[in-house]
Structures are given as C-alpha cells and as structure tokens.
C-alpha cells in the first residue's frame, strides 16, 4: 500500500517552496490563466517551471489548476498552455471542463488529468463516467460523509482525493452563481465574491424572521478533518488535500507540518491515542483564524453543525520568519508584535518544534530593542538551539520551555 499523499495549496512561488519544505508531497498552484482563484494565481509558466524544479529536489510533485468553467474566449491558447505544462514537468492538471479534459488527453501523454471538485462528483457511477473520459483521479465533492466516501471508494478503482482542511463552499462547488448575481463577479471563472459569507435578513412573505443581532448566513465553517484522517488513511484514498491558495505562508507551513507529522506518526505506529489527536488539534488551533468543523464527514449535515454564524479574527500567532543566521543569532523578518521575555516556538521544517524565551533583541544596526511591532522589520534574536533559515516563529507556551 503506497503512502497517502499530502497535497497543499500555494498562491505563489514562496508559498509553494514553504509547503514542500514543511512536508507536502505535492503542491497545487494556479496559472495566470485558466484557473479559479484568479487573484491567488501568481504563477506564470516560468514560475511553474521553477516550482517543478524545486519540488523535484524534494521528490514532490506540482499540480496546476486549469479549473475554470470556460466561456468561449477562455479556451483560446489552452492547447499550447497544456503542452507547455507537460514540457516543464508538471505532474497533473486539475480541471472541470470536459472539453479541457479531452484536449489534455489529446495533446499530452505524461501529465495526469484530475477532475476538480467543481464537478461535484458524489458517487462511483459518476466516477465511472469521468474515467471513461480519460480522467486519472477524482477530487470528490466536499459533501460526502466518511461512510459515503468509503462506499464510493469501494465501488471504483479510480484514485480519489479528499479535501481535509480549509475553506468550504457553502454550496455545491461549481454550481453556485450567487457572486455573479449579487456582484457581477463570475464565481466559476475565479471571481467569487463569497456572497455566501454575508449576512441576510430572512422573511416569510413580508414578516421578518431574523433579528438584527442574529442575521442569517449561508456560510460554512472551515473544514478541519483531523478526526477522520486515520480513517481516510485506512480507506486507502490517494490524496488528502488542503484548501487555501490565498492563505498565508505561515498558515501553509503550520497546517502542512501538522498533517505531515500526524500522517507519519500514524504510519509509523499504526495507531494513535486520543492524547496525540488532541495534541494535533492544539497545533491546528495555532494556525486557524476562522471557525472550523468536520464538514460533511460526520454525516450530520442535516443538523447543520457546519454553519458559520460569526467569523473570528485573524490569527496573531505568527511572529516572523528566520531569513538569516550567524553563529550566535538569527535574523528574523517580523510579521506580528512580540516583546522581550515572550515565549516563542520555532515551527521547524525538519525537526520537532521547540520553544525559547526571547532574551535579546537587536535591530539591524545591532541596537537593543524591547518591542518588535513593525511588520517586515528585521531584528536579531538569540536562540539557544539549532534552527534553519526559513523556519517560522510563532507564539509559544511557557509550559513548553
């Protein structure tokens, strides 16, 4: 049985490299054309080529989203683009349009074609149809419970990919045009305005049902599938997918690292006690900035535990990134405020995370500081153990010292 794939998102080259360094087996990225999340897609073909070369050094793969639901003019140049992607070593494309599936199968030979969750595949019969069209892998709809995934998997021999973490569409992906209607931004071509996350008054005829302090929202909580990862591994699904091409580098690093550790620990020990699950839950909490739930996996969607009635504020856990070091100190690019005597945790790319107390801060001219509160400010810190450039720092726990 091959080891399950951990598939991470990246909105730019920096984040792609971070995802790979922190343990992703594959990274999915979007090009400047043909991809949803247009505002998150900063990769031109040269960037994609660099990502592929970087990934190969780590024995990782690059997948490229070509997942718009195209209008006529969107298809111009698609054949050449797909040929370019194959030529630079992209392992797979993720697409929705059957026309694009067909073109990919016609003009490329080595690159796999994965069917996007935009097609909302919910059963093995639909999988069989897409298999007949040449699709190599299906990203199942996020609407399935763990039991439904198991049944579907059992009746198909096509590899499946499951979303395990990150933002959830309130509606069947690819079938929602709320953004089109409410803002003229095309949801299925990369312009989704997330109208589902807004707040609404409800009326029964002309009688208002909602009060001003408890308006209705269609939005879902983010997905956190931690409780189901072991079952998904046991089911032998092919890939576990993290959502979030627009998420920060810190988010990518912390989420990828946590899943990496969890997956590796389970493969090594063949079991996982509750205390370790709880440990990983705490790790995820350090990266989350929105309410999270287990989505449809529990099968309790009819009770709607997924609904997000209020968002939480952005995480302030991320303190900064190590960008250089000398024998005694590390140079940190600051992201969020911290002060002398704060406890800081190193989110290591290669080792177990460790905490230290900030005992000395120097600015770039080596003047002592007590407070770091300017984002992108560069400061020197003392660290009492070995770290690596590109490791991240976040708030730590006094008990972990």
């Amino acid at each position: 049985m091959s080891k399950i794939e951990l598939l991470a998102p990246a909105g730019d080259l920096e984040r792609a490299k971070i995802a790979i360094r922190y343990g992703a087996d594959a990274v999915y990225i979007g090009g400047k054309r043909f991809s949803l999340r247009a505002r998150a897609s900063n990769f031109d073909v040269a960037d994609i080529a660099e990502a592929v070369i970087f990934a190969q050094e780590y024995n990782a793969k690059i997948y490229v989203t070509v997942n718009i639901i195209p209008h006529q003019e969107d298809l111009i140049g698609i054949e050449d683009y797909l040929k370019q992607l194959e030529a630079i070593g992209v392992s797979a494309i993720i697409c929705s349009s059957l026309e694009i599936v067909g073109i990919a199968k016609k003009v490329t030979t080595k690159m796999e074609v994965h069917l996007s969750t935009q097609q909302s595949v919910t059963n093995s019969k639909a999988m069989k149809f897409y298999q007949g069209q040449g699709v190599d892998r299906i990203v199942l709809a996020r609407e399935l419970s763990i039991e439904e995934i198991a049944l579907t998997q059992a009746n198909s021999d096509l590899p499946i990919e499951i979303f395990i973490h990150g933002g959830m569409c309130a509606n069947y992906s690819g079938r929602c045009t709320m953004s089109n209607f409410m803002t003229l931004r095309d949801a299925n071509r990369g312009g989704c305005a997330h109208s589902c996350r807004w707040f609404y008054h409800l009326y029964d005829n002309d009688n208002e049902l909602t009060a001003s302090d408890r308006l209705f929202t269609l939005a879902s909580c983010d997905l956190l599938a931690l409780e189901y990862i072991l079952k998904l591994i046991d089911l032998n699904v092919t890939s576990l997918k993290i959502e979030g091409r627009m998420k920060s580098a810190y988010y990518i690093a912390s989420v990828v690292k946590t899943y990496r550790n969890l997956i590796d620990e389970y493969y090594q020990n063949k079991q996982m006690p509750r205390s370790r699950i709880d440990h990983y839950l705490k790790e995820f909490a350090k990266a989350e900035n929105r309410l999270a739930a287990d989505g449809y996996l529990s099968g309790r969607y009819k009770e709607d535990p997924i609904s997000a009635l209020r968002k939480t504020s952005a995480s302030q856990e991320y303190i900064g990134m190590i960008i250089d070091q000398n024998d005694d100190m590390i140079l940190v690019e600051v992201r969020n405020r911290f002060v002398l005597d704060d406890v800081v945790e190193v989110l290591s790319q290669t080792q177990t995370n460790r905490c230290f107390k900030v005992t000395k801060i120097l600015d770039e001219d080596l003047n002592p500081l007590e407070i770091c509160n300017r984002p992108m400010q560069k400061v020197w810190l003392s660290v009492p153990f070995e770290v690596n450039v590109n490791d991240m720092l976040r708030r730590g726990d006094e008990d972990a010292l």
Partner: protein
Amino acid sequence: MNLICTLYDISEVIKFKQLGIKELIISDKRFATVSNSVIADEQLMELISLVHDNDMHLSIRCDAFFYEEDIADLSDYLDKLLKFKVDGIYFTDMAVYQIAKEKNMEKLLVFDGNTTLTNNRDLKVFLKLGLKRCVIAKELTYEKVLGILDGEKKKSEMIGFGHLRMSQSRRLMLTGYQEVFLNSSIHGNPNIKAQEESRNERFPIFEDEMGTYTYSSYIFWCLNELKVLNDHVDHLRLDRFFISDQLYFEVIKAYQDVLKGDDPNAIIDRLKKDYPHESFGTGFLYEQTTL
C-alpha cells in the same frame, strides 16, 4: 420554437394544450430538487397516457446529486421511466448518464448542469454523448448565448423565463438557523426570502430534503429577444418555481403571442402594470460578469 412548461397537476394538461404547449416537465421529490410531490406509478402512467393522447411530450426532472446509497433506487427509477415511456429525463449528476447508458436509454436524457455549459465546445462534447439535448448556462450575455447555440439549434435548450437558480447546497441551512433562533419550521416553505443586510432586493431561498437553494430576486424573461432567439434555439423552458399560477399562464400566452408576431414591448408594459409587485429582469443578457 418549442416552449417547455412545468406541470404541477394532471388537471392542467388540457390547459397547456390549449395554450399550444407541446412539452411538459414534472418532478418527483425523491429524485428531483425543489419538488414537493411524490408521484405514484399509477399516477405517472395515467399522466403519460393523457399527455401522449394529446400529442404532447412529458419529461421528468431527475436533477439531484446522488450518493452511493441512492444508486440502486436511481437505477430502478430509470427502468421505470423507460417502461412508462417518459419522453425526456433532465439530469445534472453524471451518474444518471452512466446508468442510462448502461440501459441504452441515454437518448432520453437532457443535461442541465446549471452552470457548466458556458461554451460551444463543451456543449458539443456533451452532445456527442448521445443525449436528447443540453441546457446552456444562464450566466451568459446575449452575444454569448447566440455563440454557444451556433450550429446546435435542435439539440440545445435555454431557460427563457423564471427565477434563476443561484445556488444549491446539501446543507439544510434554514432548518439549521431555525433550530437555533426560531420557534417554527421554515423547511419546505416557498415563501421564504433573504435580503442581504445592505441591499434592497429579496430573493427566494428554499429548503427541501436534498438541501437549500437560492434563486434570483427577479423573474428572468426574454420577451424582447424572443424573435431573434427563435432563429437560434428550438427549446425554450419557462420555469415555474415561486411564480403564481395566474402569472405563469399569462406569461405562456405572452410568449406565444410574441412568437406569433405581437409587439413584445406592449406585452411587457402590460405585464409590468398588471404585476406591479413582481420584479422582472433580463439576467446576464446585457450584464457582463468580471473577475
């Protein structure tokens, strides 16, 4: 042009015939979204006989997303529809196609992906599957509508009237809200509307056993474009969700009158005057979306 209308009750068949309608759609809530009725076998047989006796066609919506445990029932249902000689089956989930193909009945299928057919090339890919026809997406400009229909007049369908579906979720969103904040159920209530806190329009939001759906705040129509569309599309569907019976039947007559040569502007003015509380619009025909 063939106008396709929604039938709610067997007693309406003759009324539709008198309006010149040749194709009707029904739905069964076990297999279709936004449907309130379950149709017993004997009712379905009686209905199909009546429709066929009046030289009309009957299609049935089978447009839900299906899950693994639904597949056996879905297969049996398709067997039944074939046996009863239904004339068309609308579907969204490709499982319906796969099962129908295994039964050699794919020629009865009408693909309605809601959002997915947005270009002529994808339309041709679907039609090569041997389907009866395909419904094009609704979020297209007039120019794009004419482009996508190019060369596929007989095998394509367009939504020509009704509240347009904006979204479909598996979650029971209204029940979820009601259980926390309300005393009485709003599940299945067709009169529920939502209004974004900074906007004035209210749009229908409906929940059935399969999930929650939102629809456009306005009623889409294309009376002004009908004469041109008549040259490009053979099948125009007039949807009925959240529309009063009175308005629906008036609109059918209005569409027929325009197709016969009446001035659409006069008809539009009259309908707007007669239904001052309804909001009508042309959807995306003259609205280009952006990213």
